[in-house]
């Protein structure tokens, strides 16, 4: 539907909340879905549904095509080879897969580093992997501005560091991290690098080659795709060397009671019937992204985000967390006159959907000395009017609470 205003692609944006126009600013949690994605999922179940890779019949062949086309499309989109993309249920499963499979080679005395701004989905699997191996798990500090302290990273790196985990884009501060530079530093001591790309696809054109990372984890639903599907990108030589994580049907070559052999490539990590409808939807989401002028959209989002940032900072008693130089439209703030949950409820009453709480980043909350923040996060469909409505609602809350 070329020519259609972007917001018109998203039927859920027409939902009214408390009789008000919905202003959806919780995109870092999940974005709304464009018609193309909704229709692709619907079409799949209506006309194509079958299991993949197994049946001799026509529908099974079609379902397999749908699923494998999605893999090809994602691989092309991120600049990876087809055999380097493993489908998972989402970022969390991707990290667990890696932390389990790669973590099984960790030894006592090894070190795993993760930045202080990582999401619990990254921190907890690596904490567990390190703990199981008797390895140490250490935070790479974040500056007051909300940037990873690369000098500190440099001083922490030695040959005992086996893995560095770093998010590409912070889900709390909106920071775009210098992943490539960090990866070069880590590689120089022989460490591997896992990048959390959960927020990336929706905000920027991502190239795993440019990121220079060994592994990148993704979710579809934070970039206009369906929930329940994500991916692990891994450099082909590294993926091939990893033991399986989940085991079962579809990932084996041969099974006998005394010996099981496993398939190569991504299939080795995809046990059980995958989320085929999710893959169909993800394909459509990538097509939606491909139809946008992403560079222009990113600029517009940064401008809107800065408007939001400066508008919030001008409300009495409001503190915006961090001021990273490279950033996207994700803004967290605290108000000295009200708890984040009260701010969130006040905004909801005006139809403004934001996230409140620790955003699955407790160490980062601690770093800034706060228990919870209110977070507004932008997507391609947000407008000046959305940001103005949000700011007006925050000012209204301040007038009500600050006394």
């Amino acid at each position, binding site marked *: 539907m070329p020519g259609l205003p972007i917001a018109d692609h998203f039927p859920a944006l027409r939902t009214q909340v408390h009789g008000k126009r919905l202003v959806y600013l919780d995109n870092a949690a999940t974005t709304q879905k464009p018609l193309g994605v909704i229709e692709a999922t619907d079409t799949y179940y209506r006309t194509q549904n079958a299991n993949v890779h197994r049946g001799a019949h026509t529908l099974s062949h079609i379902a397999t095509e749908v699923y494998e086309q999605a893999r090809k499309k994602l691989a092309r989109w991120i600049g990876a080879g087809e055999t380097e993309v493993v489908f998972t249920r989402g970022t969390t499963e991707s990290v667990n897969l890696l932390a389990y499979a790669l973590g099984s080679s960790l030894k006592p005395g090894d070190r795993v580093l993760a930045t202080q701004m990582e999401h619990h989905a990254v921190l907890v699997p690596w904490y567990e992997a390190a703990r199981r191996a008797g390895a140490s798990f250490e935070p790479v500090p974040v500056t007051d501005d909300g940037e990873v302290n690369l000098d500190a990273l440099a001083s922490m790196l030695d040959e005992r560091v086996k893995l560095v985990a770093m998010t590409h884009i912070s889900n709390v501060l909106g920071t775009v991290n210098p992943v490539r530079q960090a990866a070069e530093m880590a590689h120089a001591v022989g460490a591997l690098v896992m990048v959390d790309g959960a927020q990336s696809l929706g905000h920027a054109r991502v190239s795993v080659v440019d990121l220079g990372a060994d592994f990148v984890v993704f979710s579809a639903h934070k970039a206009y795709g369906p929930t329940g599907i994500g991916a692990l990108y891994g450099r082909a030589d590294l993926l091939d060397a990893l033991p399986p994580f989940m085991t079962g049907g579809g990932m084996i070559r041969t099974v006998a009671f005394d010996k099981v052999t496993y398939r190569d490539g991504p299939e080795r990590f995809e046990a059980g019937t995958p989320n085929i409808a999710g893959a169909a939807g993800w394909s459509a989401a990538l097509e939606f992204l491909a139809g946008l002028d992403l560079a222009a959209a990113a600029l517009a989002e940064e401008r809107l985000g800065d408007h939001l940032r400066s508008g919030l900072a001008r409300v009495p008693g409001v503190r915006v967390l961090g001021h990273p130089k490279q950033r996207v439209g994700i803004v967290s703030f605290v108000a000295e*006159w*009200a*708890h*984040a*949950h*009260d701010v969130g*409820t*006040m905004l*909801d*009453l*005006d139809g403004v959907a934001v996230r*409140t*709480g*620790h955003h699955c980043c407790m160490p980062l909350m601690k770093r800034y000395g706060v*228990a*919870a923040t209110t977070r507004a996060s932008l997507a391609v469909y947000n407008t000046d009017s959305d940001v103005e409505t949000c700011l007006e609602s925050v000012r209204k809350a301040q007038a*009500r*609470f600050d*006394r």
Partner: protein
Amino acid sequence: MDEFYQDFVIEHGRHPHNFREVEDATHEAEGDSPLCGDHMRLQVVLDGGVVKDAAFTGEGCAVCMASASVMTDMLKGMTEEQALETASRFRKCMVEGLEVEELQLQAFLPFRAYPMRVKCATLPWVTVQKAFGAK
């Protein structure tokens, strides 16, 4: 909007009553909502079966702070049984949508529209049940 954050709730939330520690507490308990980070410590002085003093410390949202403020006001002069009866009746109202007679408790009923916020209002009452060893 006004029915949600009535002046009454905001006043109690910003300037809670009985926000202090008690020297001679006979009963006390900690209450936590790990998801939202609300935390409170409730102290009660029970004398001859009647609450002589009730106070709390901690941090949380306006709804939780206001509820604790109102509750500690109400507890004073109640018997243990009255306190527990009020606690279980209020919790039931917040979950099952029943009405309450007490005006000061009615101020919290709008938050039933937000299941996530119900526990902000009930946390203090859950904590008094804990302090008196009831479930």
